[in-house]
């Protein structure tokens, strides 16, 4: 075989191998994903309660919509013009009894689901603390362009793009933003909440199993949005204490280093800060620290890229 023939062949084989590899990933993923529905397989009480509501409400509605779908198809097919056995009733256009049923069925369903909505809204209000014998961990969250800052006021440390929480302890989040909106979400723990500048929002979550979970922003916040995901490590008390101790060795987070962090850009790896300027969070919220500056000056016309795609992490 001559070299100039081998080239395309080899290339073809490479492409084929790549396609097969990707295909295998696809197939394996499909097989796995049955048990990978994060939202239905929660690792904390809030998420579990929400999954429960999701399932109950879906089952109730399936009981209505499946017969409706079947009925529609059956009616349409049975009463097809070519079916001589179907009785044609060209003037039949009203029935009080049917109307009664037709209004009652959705109404009763909605009354029932409305009850679930009302009770659920109160019980699972993100601002309501989780009942527990243990003292809650307080975490202050700031969304920056395009990374997450987690402040631990009691431990006096901070981390970027990594959230570490002890298993079994309620976590009280207080959240804000340095610039644009984001939404803080750890699918396997439950409820998301928006972060907005000059405002704080509250969220209470708890992890009840050890493990590393996926956290992300769900509200689009600009070019680096897709990189705003972070690992959430739910660890034992001992491991948490060790992590805090390890973080203490890190640099100090003050207004100046915060200012650097608030500039647009993504961070490659999680980092931590050993000490934090007191009141930093309060000053971010009441805007006595400058907001995230946004794109650099001169980015006026056209669309100069402010962030280079990393291609995943």
């Amino acid at each position: 075989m001559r070299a100039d023939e081998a080239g395309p062949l080899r290339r073809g084989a490479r492409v084929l191998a790549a396609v097969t590899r990707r295909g295998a990933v696809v197939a394996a993923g499909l097989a796995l994903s049955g048990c990978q529905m994060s939202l239905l397989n929660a690792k904390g009480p809030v998420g579990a309660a929400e999954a429960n509501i999701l399932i109950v409400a879906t089952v109730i509605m399936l009981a209505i919509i499946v017969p409706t779908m079947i009925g529609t198809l059956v009616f349409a097919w049975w009463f097809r013009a070519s079916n001589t056995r179907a009785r044609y009733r060209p003037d039949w256009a009203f029935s009080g009894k049917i109307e009664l049923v037709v209004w009652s069925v959705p109404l009763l369903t909605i009354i029932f689901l409305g009850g679930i909505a009302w009770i659920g809204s109160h019980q699972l209000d993100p601002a309501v603390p989780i009942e527990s014998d243990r003292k809650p961990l307080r975490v202050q969250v700031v969304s920056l362009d395009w990374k997450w800052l987690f402040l631990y006021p009691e431990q006096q440390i901070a981390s970027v793009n990594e959230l570490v929480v002890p298993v079994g302890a309620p976590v009280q989040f207080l959240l804000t933003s340095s610039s644009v909106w984001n939404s803080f979400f750890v699918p396997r723990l439950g409820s998301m909440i928006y972060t907005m500048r000059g405002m704080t929002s509250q969220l209470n979550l708890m992890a009840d199993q050890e493990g590393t979970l996926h956290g992300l922003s769900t509200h689009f916040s600009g070019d680096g949005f897709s990189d705003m995901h972070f690992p959430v490590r739910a660890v034992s008390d001992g491991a948490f204490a060790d992590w805090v101790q390890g973080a203490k060795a890190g640099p100090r987070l003050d207004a100046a280093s915060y200012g650097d962090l608030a500039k647009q850009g993504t961070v490659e790896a999680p980092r931590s800060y050993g000490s934090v300027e007191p009141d930093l969070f309060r000053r971010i919220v009441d805007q006595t620290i400058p907001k995230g500056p946004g794109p650099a000056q001169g980015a006026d016309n056209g669309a100069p890229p402010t962030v280079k795609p990393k291609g995943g992490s």
Partner: protein
Amino acid sequence: MLGKLTWSAIPFDQPIPLVAAALVGLVLLGVIAWVVLAGYFPYLWREWITSVDHKRIGVMYVLLGLVMLIRGFSDAILMRSHQALAYNAPGYLPPEHYDQIFSAHGTIMIFFGAMPFMIGLMNFVVPLQLGVRDVAFPTLNSVSFWLTATGALLVNVSLVIGEFARTGWWPSPPLSEITYSPGVGVDYYLWAIQISGIGTLMSGVNLVTTILKMRAPGMSYLRMPMFCWTALASNLLIIAAFPILTATLAMLTLDRYLGFHFFTDEAGGNSMLFMNLFWAWGHPEVYILALPAYGIFSEVISTFSGKPLFAYRSMVWATLAICLLSFTVWLHHFFTMGPGGDVNGVFGITSMIIAVPTGVKIFDWMFTMYGGRVRFTTPMLWSVAFVVTFVVGGATGVLLAIPPADFVLHNSLFLVAHFHNVMVSAVVFAAFAGYTYWFPKAFGFTLDEWWGKAAFWFSLVGYVWVFTPLYVVGLMGMTRRMQHFSVAEWYPWIVAASLGVIVMFAGVVCQVVQLVVSIRRREHLRDLTGDPWDGRSLEWATASPPPSFNFAVMPHVEGEEAYWAIKQRAREQARLREEPDYEPVEMPLNSPTGFVCAFFATLVGFAMIWHIWWLAALGLAGAFATFVVFAWRDRVEYEIPAEAVARINRLNRASRLEALQQARRKEAA
């Protein structure tokens, strides 16, 4: 001199938009050159561009909608294929480009695809169904259309000159404020929507006035066809909701241009206010699109079941209930901002209540088919598929209305799948059902059924194929608008969704082929009677295409289903009604006002986007001058002599008589 506009505004370094735009530009120039060289321009100018005939304007609206649906769909192809290549990889669209594409996709589909399509069908059908000769304000109608076209043009100009918004189709501040979006993208969005929004609002005023004030003698409200009811409800919503959008976007414009602080989260401004106001328009907007869709399905299902609409009055109540309730649900767009249990609970319940009248409609459509003789034509296929798939979207909607469920599903691909499930099955299916159903009325020949059915099946399968995986991946915690991702479990579902797009694409191709084939075979598909589907409402009582004056004499309506009654009598007596006494008809004169206004509006929009102040002033002056010239016109109407009216009507009567006799011969045999 040219404000912010420089050569750097043209993305020479980005091949995809440049090539796409060059291609579109070439096609456009080619068409214009062909039109001019072949000598069609005077015809186009006289019969279409300056026409104030509601039918012509309706057709142009639908054409605009069709073209923009294809543009929006090509954005969808880019997004889906990009994401399929963006697992642990950068994909082929950099973030700043990808962000523009999903923003443009939403903006185009809602404002320039779905809206013109629905408004076009209402424009074309409503006056015919009401038995009148035109809308209340014919020239205003033309202005409305051309302003909508201006908006669509501006959005497409942003492909080549500058950029489009990178903020999503609702430009939520502070991201859309000048600090975080200093480019012209958001300005393109603002001016395109503001200008077309004026058109939409005027169109709403026009149709409401028409329905309230201009019905044929005897056409009381409760004798109006269902489509007119839904059109009335939809246009009332336009009148109530669009000013909110205009005001909200005007505030954002002030923020961006003059340093105001409505939504900046500074100096007393609050970005949440934007969210509130935007969705106070945005949720009614969903029903502005869905209500006429429900009307189309009502007409189609009733016609092809050979029965009156089941529980007509109940349907009217359900329509009005949806119209009112649609204003009480907007807060469900931000359950996740933490408004508290009481607020979330109340708005969760109001959002669910809207499912009650909608559910009633579903059941009533079912019972319309019950006892009927269902003919499975293309419009009927779209309608049955709508009922079956829409209930799934309705159910996931109710699910999302439960606040604790929304806490985990908000902004996810589950949500994306939900609103595509409802918008595609309701609005897009209705659009194509209505398009196939009324096409013979507009052009005098039916569309090819084989290609129509092929388009239907590919679209249906493709649509289920694309959005089912998105539901699943949403339950796995995947959020919308990701330029790349690194979660292995999501990947196969994203690939699956992308493959579905190929099937949908086949549907789009069939839809285009259907039109081409039908035009070529038009003599074969010709309908001379004006009533190809055995219709029940007044639009089928006149010729296809209807004469400019619609009806030779105003029809007298004596009950529900006005035309069905006339037709039954003719069938029983085996003859048409007595020939009426023809009188001359006064019709409004053509006017270039709309086109010229839109030309100046385009200048204003473009100039404001690029801060070319003198040009903006010039454009405004020009638009005002056009209005003044129109207001000072001497002649308003022209007269069609009675003989001409008689001649046109007799032609149609002859075909109808022949059809009637043919039917009787068939029955006798």
